[in-house]
């Protein structure tokens, strides 16, 4: 794990941007949801959304490592990313029960989101581990 929290956050933002573009690519290929905005605009929006997701997930990963909730960075990152996505998804389900017209659930999109959450964990974990290995003295 990077010793410097700030550097870990920067890694999280980078991983999030990469993940946002992976999500855009996967979504475009799967055809589960057709983009309504232009592809150029989506590149920026997905990078921003991914960076936000990545930074928040990194905050929890660093906290988990500090509290020794897990030892392996990649495995911990996958668990944290999935849990963060799940919490948001459960919140979305709660909103859906209150206002089904505005927040309606699409099962295929949920399945895609689940897979993408695991992807974020892998990307984040690999990037954080790479940082850790580079920071360690030879």
């Amino acid at each position, binding site marked *: 794990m990077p010793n*410097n*929290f*700030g550097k*870990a*956050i920067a890694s999280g933002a980078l991983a999030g941007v990469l993940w*946002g573009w992976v*999500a*855009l690519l*996967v*979504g475009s290929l799967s055809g589960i*949801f057709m*983009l*309504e*905005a232009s592809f150029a605009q*989506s590149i920026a*929006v*997905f990078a921003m*959304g991914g960076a*936000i*997701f990545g*930074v*928040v997930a*990194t*905050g929890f990963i660093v906290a988990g490592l500090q509290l020794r909730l897990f030892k392996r960075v990649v495995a911990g990152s996958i668990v944290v990313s999935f849990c963060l*996505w799940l919490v*948001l*998804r459960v*919140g*979305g*389900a709660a*909103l*859906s029960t209150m206002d089904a*017209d*505005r*927040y*309606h*659930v*699409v099962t295929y*999109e*949920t*399945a*895609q*989101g*689940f897979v*993408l*959450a695991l992807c974020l964990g892998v990307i984040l974990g690999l990037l954080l581990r790479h940082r850790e290995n580079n920071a360690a003295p030879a």
Partner: protein
Amino acid sequence: MEKALDRDVLWSMVVPALVVFALAFALVVVAYGFDDAFHDFRHMIGMPCH
């Protein structure tokens, strides 16, 4: 020396923690669209949306 240490702690721990805290709120806003900008992103990551 002590001031330098404080500044180091500020930039390496406190500021990143505040960034994470602020972005956690931003994530909720993005995930649920609490007012168009993130409409496609929300659909792609499986969040309920119309």
